[in-house]
């Protein structure tokens, strides 16, 4: 007798059948097909065999009772809350008090830089000329005004710029 439903159509149903995943109506259609189809019965036997392996594995690997996770979870929650509250206190301090002096300093440096570019004779408060003592002479030679570049003192000397602290054991007069 030729089965009423195609083998390709029944393949998915067979895989569901082994796990009891078919409704009664679906299972009846499958049973009807199997009654007249040897290859699908063989297919089902293979599926049942591998599914039985999975079920045996499931039984053999059941977890024993274990201590509750809650104490550890609770401790981690407490730690994260503590760090959040600490961040909540420190962030405004950093945001308001911490950044203002840095930005003010940067603005001041830029202002000094701009002024010195516009007026080469400009000397900032506390600034001055650098002089060098010539060996064997008490006379001090003036090298030029100190220019301020964001806190780094440079000396103009006939177009040459030298970093003051690197070159001379000068007598510096401000």
């Amino acid at each position, binding site marked *: 007798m030729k089965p009423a439903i195609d083998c390709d159509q029944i393949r*998915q149903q067979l*895989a569901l059948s082994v*796990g009891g995943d078919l409704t009664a109506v679906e299972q009846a259609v499958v049973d009807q097909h199997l009654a007249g189809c040897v290859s699908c019965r063989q297919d089902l036997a293979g599926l049942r065999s591998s599914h039985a*392996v999975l079920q045996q594995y499931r039984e*053999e*690997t059941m977890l024993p*009772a274990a201590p509750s996770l809650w104490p550890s979870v609770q401790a981690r929650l407490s730690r994260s809350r503590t760090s959040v509250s600490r961040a909540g206190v420190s962030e405004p301090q950093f945001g308001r008090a911490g950044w203002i002096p840095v930005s003010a300093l940067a603005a001041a440096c830029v202002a000094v830089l701009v002024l010195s570019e516009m007026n080469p004779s400009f000397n900032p408060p506390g600034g001055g000329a650098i002089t060098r003592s010539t060996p064997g002479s008490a006379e001090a030679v003036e090298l030029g005004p100190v220019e301020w570049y964001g806190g780094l003192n440079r000396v103009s000397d006939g177009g040459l710029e030298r970093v003051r602290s690197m070159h001379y054991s000068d007598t510096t007069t401000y």
Partner: protein
Amino acid sequence: MSVRMSDPELQYKDASPPGGSGSEARLMEVARQGDSEAFGELVRRYEGRLLSVIRRFVTDVETARDLAQDTFLKAYERIDQFDPSRRFGPWLFRIGVNVTLDFLRRRKRRVWFTLFSQTGEDRPMDPSTPDPRVARDLEQEVRAVLDQLPEKHRTILVLRDLENFSSSEIAAILQRKEATVRWRVAEARREFQRVWESRQAGEACPIHEEGSDDETSD
């Protein structure tokens, strides 16, 4: 269409905890207001089942416990995103499956990096061929087969055949249609059978491309 739970013991295990989902929604609401003890009650209700699911993916018990803790912490962090009209369980298990799969993906990347960093003779054996030196027991063999399956099939088999979630529960966990889940269950069982039989016959099985295996979305 409905899928029944065939195992009475698991029916008990799966039954809503005392008070039911209404009670869970209330616990979540109290926890949302900052009462961690209410959340602790939910942890105690679900930790066993969650740990069991994670252990199906991760062999090491301590790693599984760490991942379960991470899951609960993530759930607590996202407590405002929980829809009180829905059940807590599927939401929690979805987070748990995602946390676990993310961990496994990271570990897999590390393993590949290690493999490519090693010299040929030091490399471990190809997992797709049975180890001829050792007669492995059933547990090791099944785990080896599961590890070879694409993530989408492994996830479905773990949830349906090893943890006995119903198709509708799996659909809620994975946020897929129930018909899609049934199709995947059938596919996964076929794939397990194919790899298992090949392995028992001593044949090497090609490892399937994982492709777009991102099973869950959260």
